[in-house]
């Protein structure tokens, strides 16, 4: 589909107390100012504009909750909502999937 520079749609809040992982068909390519994520199944391309967001995504499946993963990477409470929204966007494009218990 065509690209939107910004999203005005209402994104459901991502549950930080859940476990998340990267979809197996996603290729993560670090870049100096973040990362590129490409989903071979959906052919969607996402650009992460923050290195810490990349780091969170890389360690996500090592932790029982997304909240913990964010904490380990050093995200403060005041910054958390911004990163939570970012993770929600990745969930919406199927880059991230919930880990079923």
């Amino acid at each position, binding site marked *: 589909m065509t690209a939107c520079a910004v999203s005005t749609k209402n994104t459901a809040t991502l549950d930080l107390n859940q476990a998340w992982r990267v979809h197996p068909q996603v290729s993560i390519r670090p870049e100096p100012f973040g990362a590129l994520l490409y989903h071979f199944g959906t052919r969607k391309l996402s*650009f992460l504009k923050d290195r810490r967001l990349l780091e969170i995504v890389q360690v996500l499946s090592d932790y029982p909750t997304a909240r913990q993963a964010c904490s380990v990477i050093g995200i403060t409470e005041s910054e958390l909502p911004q990163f939570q929204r970012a993770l929600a966007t990745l969930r919406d494009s199927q880059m991230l999937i919930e880990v079923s218990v």
Partner: protein
Amino acid sequence: MSQSPQNAIPAEEAVLEADTLVEEVSIDGMCGVY
């Protein structure tokens, strides 16, 4: 569709949009490709 900065957006949404850490790009959205 892309939004130009000149579009009127409620203040709270404008803040949200400006700080988005994830941007989606169409794999077809790069010029210089067949």
